[in-house]
């Protein structure tokens, strides 16, 4: 049992416990904070797998961007100190059952399947390699999806402005 193994199990437990608390807690602000820690744990898993670029993107976009956005929207839409309404027992029971059955089915399928990969020359996921392939236009380059995603981001930007700029409400 090496240090790497211990770190892996610690990160996995951290991520899963925080994710579980995020959906189980009834205070929405705490849910957002638990989600933040869960996302940090996932970034730690990427670091553990030595995909440093993805880990950095995860921290910047998810931890720094989306969670802050969620916390702001909680402040704008929620009265402080409100508890989320409690669901009735039957609904909780059945959703737990559905989630658990799906989880058991998936894990059984995964463990029965033996994956065969190809073990070619490993490409190091360095920033130089990633950049060369992402903007490459030769075979296997990702220049076209990159442009499509940039158009999507532009559309999302304009969409947000249009949604937020709805006509002024009548004076009440």
């Amino acid at each position, binding site marked *: 049992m090496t240090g790497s193994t211990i770190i*892996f199990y610690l990160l996995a437990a951290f*991520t899963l416990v925080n994710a579980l608390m995020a959906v189980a807690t009834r205070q929405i602000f705490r849910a957002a904070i638990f989600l933040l820690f869960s996302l940090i744990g*996932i970034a730690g898993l990427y670091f553990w797998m030595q995909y440093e670029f993805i880990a950095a993107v995860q921290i910047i*976009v998810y931890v720094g961007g989306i969670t802050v956005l969620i916390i702001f929207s909680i402040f704008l839409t929620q009265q402080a100190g409100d508890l989320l309404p409690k669901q009735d027992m039957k609904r909780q029971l059945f959703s737990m059952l559905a989630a658990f059955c799906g989880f058991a089915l*998936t894990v059984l399928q995964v463990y029965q399947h033996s994956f065969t990969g190809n073990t070619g020359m490993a490409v190091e996921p360095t920033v130089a390699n990633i950049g060369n*392939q992402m903007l490459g236009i030769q075979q296997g380059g990702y220049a076209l999806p990159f442009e499509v995603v940039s158009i999507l981001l532009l559309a999302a930007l304009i969409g*947000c402005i249009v949604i937020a700029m709805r006509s002024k409400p009548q004076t009440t």
Partner: protein
Amino acid sequence: MMEPGLYHLLFISAALFFIGIYGFFIRRNLITILMSVELILNSVNINFIAFNKYLWPGKMDGLFFTIFIIAIAAAEAAVAIAIIINLYRSHQSIDVEKAGEMKY
């Protein structure tokens, strides 16, 4: 405890996915539903990176899919929160049960 490998990462990702599904089922609040969706998207990202690392180390396709998923998730979260705040302005509530008239 074994040496962690592909199966361990797939286990974590499946667990995260179904935690997200559970949160999706039990909450009626749009923001918590959005958080569950973020968890689900993250589990998919872990899957892509794990397959890329352990099965096809010679390519970086899983990595690019992960980057694009993160970009699209960011756009989706921004649009969703704009809709949620607008809904709150007109209904004073972000409960999904009370948002029925959005479909007309």
